[in-house]
């Protein structure tokens, strides 16, 4: 195994977003804080989803998870498409790095960006409403699995996309709505029957619900189901991405 090569790529991918922290960390944090201010203020007193949990407290974990997954996706997909468009991906493809090493470095960097944003947001949330912490382990596991899944999805999207537009479309018409409409702002129990049923096949719903369970110890689904669905989605995406990297699909014509 080329450990040093793997580490070099990982550090490079981290430094890539670290050099533009305003854009890669601060900006998503501000977005989430604005959501929190608006929705928390408008609906804060009028709604209660779980008994004993204020609405503002309810939406904080959802907003954190939404930011984690959107940014994990953004990190891998934008890095890959940029290297493809600039042509500098050849430097990586010529190097003695295996599919697993490429995969691991990109995905880990995506997860780390998600974790960084999640941590900053958690700090902000603490200033607004101190959240309970039911299970550290569940919070961490859900962050890594969901962030990982979306980082891998970003890798796949980056491999498939031929230009920035493709990626922007995928981000705006799929990732954004899917993460936004999967229970960040409401419990699926308030949804009509049909949509509630459908939610049980939506991995994004489990990512948010399981993460929230880590704080409150209650959720729409069991934590086991959330871990399994999120982990399963991660594994499925990983299998596809690794197959692409191994065969050189689209990357090595």
């Amino acid at each position, binding site marked *: 195994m080329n450990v040093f090569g793997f580490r*070099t790529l990982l550090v*490079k991918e981290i430094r890539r977003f670290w050099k533009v922290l305003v854009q890669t960390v601060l900006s998503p944090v501000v977005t989430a804080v604005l959501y929190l201010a608006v929705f928390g203020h408008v609906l804060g007193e009028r709604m209660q989803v779980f008994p004993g949990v204020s609405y503002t407290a309810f939406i904080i974990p959802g907003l954190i998870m939404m930011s984690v997954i959107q940014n994990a996706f953004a990190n891998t997909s934008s890095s890959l498409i940029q290297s493809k468009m600039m042509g500098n991906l*050849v430097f990586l493809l*010529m190097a*003695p790095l*295996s599919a697993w090493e490429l995969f691991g470095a990109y995905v880990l960097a995506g997860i780390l960006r998600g974790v960084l944003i999640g941590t900053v947001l958690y700090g902000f949330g603490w200033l607004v409403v101190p959240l309970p912490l039911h299970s550290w382990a569940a919070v961490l596991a859900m962050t890594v699995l969901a962030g990982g899944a979306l980082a891998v999805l970003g890798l796949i999207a980056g491999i498939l996309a031929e230009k920035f537009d493709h990626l922007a479309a995928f981000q705006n018409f799929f990732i954004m709505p899917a993460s936004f409409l999967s229970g960040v702002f409401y419990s699926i129990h308030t949804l009509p029957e049909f949509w509630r049923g459908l939610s049980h096949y939506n991995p994004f719903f489990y990512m948010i619900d399981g993460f929230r369970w880590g704080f409150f110890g209650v959720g729409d689904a069991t934590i086991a189901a959330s871990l399994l669905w999120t982990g399963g989605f991660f594994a499925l995406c990983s299998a596809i991405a690794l197959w692409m990297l191994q065969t050189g699909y689209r990357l*090595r014509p």
Partner: protein
Amino acid sequence: MPVTSDAISIEGVRKTYGTLKALDGVEFSIRRGEFFGLLGPNGAGKSTLIGIIAGLVRMDAGRVAVLGHDNRREYRAARRALGVVPQELVFDPFFSVRECLRIQAGYYGCGREYWPWIERLLDELDLASKAGATIRQLSGGMKRRVLIAQALVHKPPVVILDEPTAGVDVELRRTLWRFARKLHAEGTTVVLTTHYLEEAEELCQRIAILDRGRLKALEGTGQILARHPFRFLRLTLDGDFRLPPGLEPCVVSRLNGSLELKLKREEQPIGEVLESVRGAGFRIVDVRTREPTLEDVFLELTGERA
């Protein structure tokens, strides 16, 4: 086995893009320590072949080995042995020249112990003063030199340069030649593709000519020229007569009063040609002969200018 193996061996390599046969069964070897020229008109398949050797392009059939290492089964060893300077001026906009070189070395498992070597490369390629600049800020010629440095960071024993001198000014061309010669003198196998045939003629020991995905010639540079069955005769003539009918098809160019004839070495001795021209009524003012250049051989084999 690797001790006696060729620097690069290419066996039966095929590649199609849709219906286009970019490479149609290419087979040859490049010996260790050789300065090798890979020539061919635009679209001949040179870059595709280099991409296949480097693992950037998948071949449909065939086998490639670098220093005896199969480039698919033993891709790590094959890639470590190889440094490729791509044809396009590609670069990473996020990092400085020095950072890019250190990162590239890192991919090959080369850490701090290679940093002095990187500084030497920066020096030798005249990049030291720009080491802290981002590559975006550099001129085209400097970007090209960064690409060369990047290909050499891991001290590869085999180096491929894909048209390093295209669109480069004369001075930089000279610098690059000197650098390539030095690299070769230090024991590196150098493979060069170029459009400047005089460049290949001056630098390369052996030359392969590729045309439409097929190998047209592979020989020592001297042999390839000697084997050419033609030579050239430039005549400056006085008088308004007609050339003997046998010579008319041999005219390759006319320039105010002088003309160049392409003559078969064996069948058209110069003495006879001169006599027949004089016989047609001309007065011969000046005579010059010229041996074929690589350009002529190239034109002969591919029907195109380089």
